[in-house]
């Protein structure tokens, strides 16, 4: 066989992500993998499978369910868990709202997105998770571009951007005290296009909403939202049927669809390659509020 010493960038990114996953398994006692049913966390699961093959993945999958998820994503989640024999923990934002008497945001573009933080922190406490692997990427958003791969959180789950631990070479410091935790982002250095290219290369199945389909949508301020009872249309909104796909899959209240005819992985990759608008800019309503929306959420313990 010929010697192929030079690694393609996808091989390099994969090797790095697998290395990070194994550091989590090696350094922590109760690690979890935060699973949303979106493409980034699906990619994480594939990487974890590769990292620990032929053994099962040594992480509990944790899903924080806002109650506003796409049913296709939930169905996909349950099938995947069954197929790989992983342990799944689901906790509901609805339950946290009731138990804690939380105030639900109201008004136009109201979303439970921020409330997920409370459920997440409770779940971490309940199971004493010491590490939570997430699918955040640095190219997504400018506060994320500053975050470490092993991102330390204090006992209140808070991120302090001014006191991040220096992260040198590939030496990840996961030492913590009881009650603290580390958020770990193995695909920090991947871009949206890298994730899609990897999904195509590995031929990973995705929830159907990632591909073009006809859907009844609420047209609001130029964005297409899923027409669902959890979003209240107002007088300025229009109900339209369009051929769309979702570029990100999150809570329905803050995730917009994009008009598209891309029905296969090849077509999606081709579309993203030429796209001139960023993923979050096109589809996420939650980041548009202020220049530092994500930074503030992360300081409060968000993913």
């Amino acid at each position, binding site marked *: 066989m010929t010697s192929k010493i030079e690694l393609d960038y996808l091989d390099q990114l994969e090797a790095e992500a697998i290395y990070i996953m194994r550091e989590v398994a090696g350094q922590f006692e109760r690690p979890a993998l935060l699973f949303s049913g979106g493409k980034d966390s699906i990619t994480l699961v594939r990487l974890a499978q590769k990292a620990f093959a*032929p053994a099962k993945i040594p992480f509990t999958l944790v899903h924080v369910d806002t109650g506003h998820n796409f049913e296709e994503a939930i169905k996909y989640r349950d099938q995947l868990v069954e197929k790989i024999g992983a342990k799944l923990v689901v906790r509901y934002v609805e339950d946290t709202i009731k138990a804690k008497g939380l105030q639900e945001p109201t008004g136009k573009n109201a979303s439970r997105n921020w409330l997920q933080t409370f459920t997440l922190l409770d779940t971490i406490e309940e199971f004493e998770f010491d590490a939570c692997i997430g699918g955040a990427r640095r190219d997504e958003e400018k506060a994320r*571009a500053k975050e470490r791969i092993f991102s330390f959180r204090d006992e209140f789950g808070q991120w302090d951007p001014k006191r991040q631990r220096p992260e040198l070479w590939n030496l990840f410091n996961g030492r913590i005290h009881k009650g603290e935790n580390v958020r770990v982002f193995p695909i920090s250095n991947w871009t949206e296009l890298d994730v899609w290219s990897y999904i195509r290369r590995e031929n990973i199945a995705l929830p159907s909403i990632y591909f073009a389909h006809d859907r009844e949508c609420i047209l609001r301020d130029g964005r297409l939202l899923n027409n669902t009872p959890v979003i209240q249309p107002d007088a300025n909104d229009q109900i339209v049927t369009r051929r769309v796909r979702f570029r990100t899959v999150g809570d329905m209240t803050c995730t917009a669809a994009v008009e598209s005819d891309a029905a296969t992985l090849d077509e999606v990759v081709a579309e993203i390659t030429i796209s001139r608008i960023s993923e979050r800019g096109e589809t996420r309503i939650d980041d548009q509020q202020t220049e530092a929306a994500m930074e503030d959420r992360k300081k409060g313990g968000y993913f």
Partner: protein
Amino acid sequence: MDLLRFITAGSVDDGKSTLIGRLLFDTKNILADQMEAIEKASKSRNDGEIDLALLTDGLRSEREQGITIDVAYKYFQTPKRKFISIDAPGHIQYTRNMVTGASNADLAIILVDARQGVAEQTRRHSLIASMLGIPHVVVAVNKMDLVDYSEDRFLEIAQSYQELAKKLQIKDLTIVPVSALNGDNVAEASPNMTWYTGETMLSVLEKVNVLSDQNLTDGRFSVQYVVRPQTDEYHDYRGYAGRIQSGTFRKGDRITVYPSELTSSIEKIELGGKEVEEAFASQSVTVLLSSDIDISRGDLIVTSDNAQPILSQDLETLICWMDDRKELKVGSKFNLQHGTSRTRCSVRSIEYRVDINTYEKIEEVEGLKLNDVARVVLRTASPIAYDPYLKNRANGAAILIDETSNVTVGACMVE
């Protein structure tokens, strides 16, 4: 297509963030909505000129102060290569952040203001790049527009930088005259500096060969995790999971395990669950051995037929101290993380401190303060199998962790 990681170092006013912004802009890697956000932010802050530096300043305090405090990562690509740009703060107060960014870089861009020439900060950034063993250094003599694109001025600066470089270990040096603001010699050759016949910044970044920087001979593999499926099908399976730090491992190779110095041979190598004949530096694999020997996380597997690492409890190191709350002193104790191993260590002596601006050695040092660089002798509780850092970056690096706060407080390069 391969991947290049590069760091840009320069001070607050050198135009470092502007250069990154310019690279992204000229290679069409700024998306429409990002550009709109920058335009909006530029309007509310400055005189309305579009400030490309706003692309990399991610935190509120950075935007407020108009400076980069922490390392920011940006991703872009051209038809030739994928790039990860590491934007590190250049002020002396943030030396530890620059060291952090430099630790993973294949190439360093050091900005020099054409009006000021080689300055204190240039010396500092160059020392850090050299100390961290970054193989390629590109000096961008920026703001050429403000010196009338003068060739004489450029040559003068280039000559004084070459003098400085002689004192350091820089394997590959390129000096390019640019104007980041106007885009001269960034992605396109400058019509204002026809006297310059060298490569543009982008062209240097696209062409530099990083493969030859890796140590491809001495096999080093730090065990991260032992894979034991404990199922009927894989009853006796015992695989050692890790990332190859250097060299090549092949099926049948004789190996030595450190620190135990037990030997065995490679029965099988798996990559993502599939068997491969050989694997090389930077690949994450699982290795199965032909005999049952005691190996766990923290052990180092080495190919027996190549140069062996040094096994010792006494380490001569160059340390960059990163703690702003405590000083490093003789007798201080830490956790030392090297590869996947952790052991306690204590400071035997501080030989000297290096003035990172003048390169002078200062002896009789009491303690190290934040951002100090010094030669320190450490004694570890158990032996470490290492290679000198400048010979093998991956197996010569270590970090110091504070035993009570758990914070990473020092970067060590073993000599």
